[in-house]
């Protein structure tokens, strides 16, 4: 286990160390003090534990690595992530997992607006609530919400899935409730399992996705 301390090292030095490390290394990062772009662009199978809250784009474009943030995260957590996983013990700001292609994000607290915007295959699990416009234009992957969702959930959604246990303030354009089949219960169980979670009452989750009515341009769609 290596310790990297922001009191002694710059962002560039810390990221360079993480990006250039050997697979299976472990790091603890101290005193992040809301630093931006921390642990961005890692392409190694390493474990990173951050002791404290981080700023924008933590673990941006992450590939393979496993990152735990013991605190909260600013906007764009794990944006465009390709694989690996991120675990946040606190809350996350806007655009968590934006355009993520793969891997998974677990947030123990709440997520602000546009969580999972434009997601392209990532799985995101939010133990609390999510803000408005979450899963906006979500293309692929899954957003699991244990709490409630703000307005316009899943607006203009494509082939992504949303599972939610709480209330939905309103649905966005083209997003509809869909049947929760046995297949989907298994899918949800697997996603939770990948995030090291279990839940005995998956039956309370509802599923939402695209009605696919906006998939091809029609003049009546333009009036929405």
């Amino acid at each position, binding site marked *: 286990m290596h310790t990297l301390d922001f009191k002694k090292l710059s*962002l*560039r030095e810390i*990221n*360079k160390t993480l*990006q250039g490390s050997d697979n299976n290394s472990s790091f603890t990062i101290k005193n992040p003090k809301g630093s*931006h*772009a921390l642990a*961005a*662009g890692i*392409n190694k199978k390493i474990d990173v534990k951050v002791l404290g809250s981080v*700023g*924008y*784009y933590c673990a*941006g*474009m992450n*590939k393979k690595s496993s990152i735990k943030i013991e605190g909260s995260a600013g*906007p*764009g957590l794990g*944006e*465009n992530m*390709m694989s690996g996983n991120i675990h946040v013990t606190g809350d996350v700001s*806007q*655009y968590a997992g*934006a*355009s993520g*292609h793969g891997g998974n994000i677990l947030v123990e607290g709440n997520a602000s607006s*546009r969580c999972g*915007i*434009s997601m*392209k*295959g990532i799985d995101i699990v939010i133990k609390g609530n999510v803000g408005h416009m979450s899963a*906006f*234009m979500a*293309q*692929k992957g899954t957003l699991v919400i244990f709490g409630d969702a703000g307005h316009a959930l899943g607006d*203009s959604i*494509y*082939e992504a899935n949303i599972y939610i246990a709480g209330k939905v303030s309103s649905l966005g354009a083209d997003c509809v409730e869909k049947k929760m089949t046995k297949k989907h219960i298994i899918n949800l169980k697997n996603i939770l399992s990948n995030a090291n979670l279990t839940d005995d009452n998956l039956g309370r989750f509802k599923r939402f996705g695209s009605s696919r009515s906006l*998939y*091809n*341009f029609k*003049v009546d769609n*333009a009036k929405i």
Partner: protein
Amino acid sequence: MKKKSVTHPRTSYTFDAYTNSEIRRAAETGIYDIRGGGSKRNLPNFDDLLFLGASISRYPLEGYRESCNTKVTLGDRFSSNPLNLEIPITIAGMSFGALSAQAKEALGRGASSVGTSTTTGDGGMTKEERGHSKQLVYQLLPSRYGMNPDDLRKADAIEIVVGQGAKPGGGGMLLGQKINDRVAEMRTLPKGIDQRSPCRHPDWTGPDDMEIKILELREITGWRVPIFVKVAGSRPYYDVALAAKSGADVVVVDGMQGGTAATQEVFIENVGIPTLACVRPAVKALQELGLHRKVQLIISGGIRNGADVAKALALGADAVSIGSAALIALGDNDPRYQKDYEKLGTTAGAFDDWHEGLDPAGITTQDKKLSKRLDPKLGGRRLANYLNVMTMEAQTIARACGKNDLRNLEPEDLCALTVESAAMAGVPLAGTNWIPGA
């Protein structure tokens, strides 16, 4: 009996034939017109400027014998590996999807052979274009279709696209006809559906966010490659200042003659400002920040020949970028396909339904048969020839103005033919020392 005089039938200037046809089309279909390309209006443009040339008070260089530098370095503000280009003419971002794989390959071949760069587009980087482009700029677009950190690290520069001159404030749409299996896979969407490209980025909004986004991209690429920011020509003074303040190495300003793969006609013709009007405000913003020539400025939108290149540089740009002109060099709208254009209800020179994927020249299509009409090697050669001609034309003008470097051209070398262009370019009306608004 004397024949009664009749007046000649008078058509309306307001309701001309094109306007009437568009009203009828709208009434029939209920859909606004979507097309590719840039503005077709008669806008103030670089043709409205003239070079003064040397005379008794200025000393010319020998046209063919004395050297005139064309090289330019882009992005040496913060990056350790800036782009070193042989000519100040780059190829603008055009996506695989909007263009055929053959067209992308031809652009790469042509640009690389004369030592300049090409740019990806919405939908990501293809193996072919990386392979055929020695210097490739990777675009970060709002859709993030095909965005991949591995490709990001393979790029020679990154261009954050905030806007396009054809549609400032607008997104894009690639109609389902052009979404084949490969395009669909690259964009993580089902085949055959219309793919909407959002008008703003998913993970940042204003300039303060963009500054942090640039920091993230630099951290991911180890501060190695330059970061470009591309803005549409709308408020160039403020946008360029904000892009530079956000940490861009290079700012690209795209005027309203700049093309798009597809958007609404009403958008193309009514939003944004002409390229000519973009240059001086952009330069002024950089000068006031003490960053002119430190943050390089690329101007695009309707650049056609060496005179346009020379004029853009004389007004203070470091380089230009071409898109539509490069496609024409490859064969877009070539009269040899006239019969095919007629079948599509148009004519060579006017074809702009690039979004429908039926391009007779095999450029803006994913149709296998049509795509084969473009030989990438021949297309690359044609583009290289065209880029060489533009460069030589620009050098000819620069030497005539006594400049041994294209970037030594200056506003003082220019005059304007109209009051409007004099005001926009900030140069005197020809034969006077009057600069309107100065």
